């Protein structure tokens, strides 16, 4: 088999045993790798209705056909499980050398079930699988754990993905981290912690074979050249932090828990200012020519990674105006292994509660919008689940349910996942994308904002035409996340589906087509939804927070802009229609058959 290894490794932490299982070609062809393969395996491995922190909930790491082929930006892997934050699918991506190593082990997926009797880490060296004592690592940061494991294994080339204290303490938005990158959203790190699993260490020596090496190399060279052209200028020369200033000017920068969409101190926090005042180093993932990562200097550290989502969530969303504070807060999140978006989102919720006198415990910290000391003091308590931190470690939805009253009105989540830095009222296509995403409020599984920024639609108006546009965006993301290709490369293709199909054919030797990839994207997305339906999804889960529908934006060029429940409902109906689902958003059997899902999943359930 080319591009794939055709097998998975199942590690059972209950017994300490492991088994290598064949992966059928039909499944790989139907779901590719990454998120698609992970979703397919989750559907089969997770017992219906499984509790996210149950040992039976599988934690699945997947590789993908393009990993290791030399195509730029493809050193990525996916982590898929049932999310403790949403109760639905969590599919999270991370990247760099750990991804390459996973492929070199000679597998397409690593499925971990069970719970170790005490703190442990899994070490896989080619075919040898060990469950090792992790007690020394417990309480350490992910990066410290990586170093300690390499040292313990006496193998500086070993690659490690680890959780921090937040994962150990089952903070529902804990991450899994490798080399400073995070599989960030949905609490995959908390599931890992619930298994008493501190880390996964890999050392592989298995090569990657492709069907047409010369053909792959030629395409890789073309794409590499394009990746250094104008379409990636932003990522190469400022990084994603460039979004902040322009989002502010366009009235799409969520501020003070989405009470505003402009921030009066945006200039100080802008990517342009950070570049001029705090730039330290440019960095990139393995096998990447774009190298979008930016490391910035703070008073306490020489190099701190910062992305737009972290900058927005720990900055304007919390009313924080000082770059220094955001950099320090970002460092704390890295140290403890916390998703910065959900951390910022949950803290912003708490700040608003505190300002309205509804969260007395917050007074001990002086927690308010813009209060830097409080922000920095409370993050460790979330990771440690101590005091008020124990409440906030549950995420904004559960915390609001606990405090009650009107506080749910400003818990800014969808399906329990906190909103990213794209204001839905001034980006109406994105509003729909956020509402219906199986992962919850997510800007990666639906890039619907791109439609709003394209000039193709009026971003401030809602109309049913957005349904089909969101479907296209989701299917596109599903293909990218399963091949896997970084989204920052997406504009380097002139006809993505045709070129990706050609590449896939040359890698796997399976003749493919644009139409096949379109269908695969739809299949993967539909299976995510099917999983959610099985786990209890109801139509009311596809909705936006009350604030978005009840309040208009008060500032900037979008002053007075809002989104009504009627407009959202109409777009959601159009979306279901475009998906050929029923009017309540359930998938008809006919559609499942058309996509070959029911047959395939039933057969594969026997695994």
């Amino acid at each position: 088999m080319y591009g794939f290894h055709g097998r998975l490794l199942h590690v059972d932490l209950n017994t300490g045993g492991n088994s290598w299982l064949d992966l059928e070609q039909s499944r790989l062809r139907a779901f590719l790798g990454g998120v698609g393969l992970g979703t397919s395996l989750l559907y089969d491995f997770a017992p219906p209705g499984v509790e996210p922190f149950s040992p039976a909930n599988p934690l699945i790491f997947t590789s993908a056909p393009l990993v290791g082929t030399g195509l730029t930006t493809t050193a990525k892997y996916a982590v898929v499980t049932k999310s403790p934050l949403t109760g639905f699918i969590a599919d999270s991506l991370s990247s760099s050398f750990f991804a390459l190593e996973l492929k070199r082990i000679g597998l397409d997926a690593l499925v971990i079930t069970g719970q170790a009797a005490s703190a442990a880490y899994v070490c896989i060296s080619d075919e040898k699988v060990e469950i090792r004592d992790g007690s020394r690592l417990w309480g350490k940061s992910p990066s410290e754990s990586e170093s300690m494991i390499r040292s313990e294994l006496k193998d500086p080339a070993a690659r490690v993905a680890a959780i921090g204290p937040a994962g150990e303490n089952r903070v529902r938005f804990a991450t899994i981290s490798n080399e400073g990158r995070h599989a960030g959203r949905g609490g995959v790190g908390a599931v890992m912690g619930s298994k008493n699993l501190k880390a996964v260490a890999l050392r592989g020596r298995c090569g990657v074979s492709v069907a047409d090496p010369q053909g792959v190399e030629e395409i890789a060279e073309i794409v590499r050249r394009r990746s250094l052209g104008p379409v990636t200028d932003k990522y190469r020369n400022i990084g994603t932090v460039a979004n902040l200033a322009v989002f502010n000017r366009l009235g799409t920068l969520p501020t003070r828990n989405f009470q505003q969409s402009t921030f009066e101190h945006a200039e100080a926090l802008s990517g342009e200012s950070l570049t001029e005042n705090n730039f330290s180093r440019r960095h990139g993932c393995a096998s990447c020519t774009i190298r979008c990562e930016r490391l910035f200097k703070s008073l306490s550290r020489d190099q701190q990674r910062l992305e737009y989502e972290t900058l927005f969530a720990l900055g304007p969303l919390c009313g924080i105006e000082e770059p220094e504070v955001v950099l320090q807060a970002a460092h704390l999140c890295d140290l403890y292994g916390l998703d910065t978006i959900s951390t910022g989102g949950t803290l912003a919720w708490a700040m608003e509660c505190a300002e309205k006198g509804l969260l007395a415990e917050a007074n001990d910290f002086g927690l308010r919008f813009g209060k830097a000391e409080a922000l920095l003091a409370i993050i460790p308590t979330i990771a440690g689940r101590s005091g008020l931190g124990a409440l906030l470690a549950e995420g904004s939805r559960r915390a609001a349910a606990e405090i009650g009253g009107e506080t749910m009105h400003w818990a800014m989540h969808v399906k329990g996942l906190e909103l990213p830095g794209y204001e839905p009222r001034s980006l109406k296509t994105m509003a729909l994308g956020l509402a219906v995403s199986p992962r919850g409020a997510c800007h990666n599984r639906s890039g619907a904002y791109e439609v709003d920024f394209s000039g193709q639609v009026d971003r401030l108006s809602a109309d049913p035409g957005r349904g089909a546009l969101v479907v296209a965006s989701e299917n596109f993301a599903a293909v990218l996340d399963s091949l896997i290709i970084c989204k920052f490369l997406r504009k380097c293709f002139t006809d993505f589906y045709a070129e990706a199909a050609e590449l896939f054919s040359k890698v796997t030797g399976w003749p493919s087509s644009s139409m096949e990839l379109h269908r695969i994207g739809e299949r993967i997305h539909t299976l995510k939804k099917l999983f959610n339906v099985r786990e209890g999804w109801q139509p009311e889960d596809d909705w936006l927070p009350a604030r978005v529908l009840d309040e208009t934006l008060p500032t900037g060029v979008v002053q007075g802009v809002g989104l009504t429940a009627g407009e959202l409902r109409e777009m959601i109906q159009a979306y279901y229609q475009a998906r050929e689902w029923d009017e309540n958003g359930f998938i008809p059997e006919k559609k499942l058959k058309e996509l070959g899902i029911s047959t395939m999943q039933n057969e594969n359930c026997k695994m």
Partner: protein
Amino acid sequence: MMRELERINRDGIIADAAAIILSGGKSSRMGQPKALLIFDGEPLILHIVRKLQSLFTDVVVVAAPGEQFVELSSLLCSQPDQPNELSELKKPNKPKVKLVRDEVAHQGPVGGIYYGLRAAGREVAFVTSCDVPFLNLALIFYLTSQISNHDVVVPHWQGRFQPLHAVYRRTVAPLLKEQLERGELRPIYLYGKVRTCEIPEEEIRRFDPEGLSFLNMNSPEDYEAALTRWEEKRLQGLGPDSQLSAFSSKPSREGSVSCTVELFGVARLLAKTTEVSLSLAHGATLSDVYSALAERLPILVGRVITPDAGNLSSGYACNVNGIDFVRNSNVKVNPGDRIFIISADAGG
């Protein structure tokens, strides 16, 4: 909603900005309240309010307590004033006017600006006085548009700052309060402490060649001269309505179009500036904007602007006034447009 915003922006109403008119002076040399001088057939204060309402959603009038406040209240407000509370007038089809009193009378402009900013509740405010009959809306629009990276935008005309024809960000209010407490009653003490954008004379002359905007009236002689001047301009067909033409979609009288290009991301870093003002021929398109920008900032050519200077490179996009993403470079530019040049990829 889209249409409404377009109207707001294309017609020149400035979102999230207010106008403040200071009317708290003693008018001692004039011998009568300057705000109530008859000008163009109506009290001067009404004349100024009406003019500013064409540009700002909210207009605030700051008056001294006592007799003058009562007079203005009866003129501007339909309901009697309640002590220490704002009076609001909502005329049919009119934006509201707020009348607020100086809490301590005659503290000079610092007090007036402070109370005005506090009452306006907007992010920024254009501040003027009640004795300037020749306000120039094109200049005011331009001044307000320069505030994005500053706390104060103040014209510098014939060697002097014009603090009562300037734009202030609300965040300077606490500093003004401190000045009041220290007895520093001149606004210029503020300028060294905050991000102040000084607009030079040559820039002002683009909009108001004679500087009539700063012509105030302190004596009966000034009043007479202003009335004569007004009549001359009216006969020349250059009354207040002509100034509005810069904000309509009609061509301006001078046949040129002024617009501002705001730069973001890589473009900003390369150019080392956040924005550039351009004056283009009537009927200019976005393509003309890119060409003019290329001439002004050659460093952008080949990277942000295409080598032929007629369009943006594939990694860049254009947004007009923060609302419309425009891909067609043949779209015409309207006077006062703010054209954003941003990355075409909003991924983060």
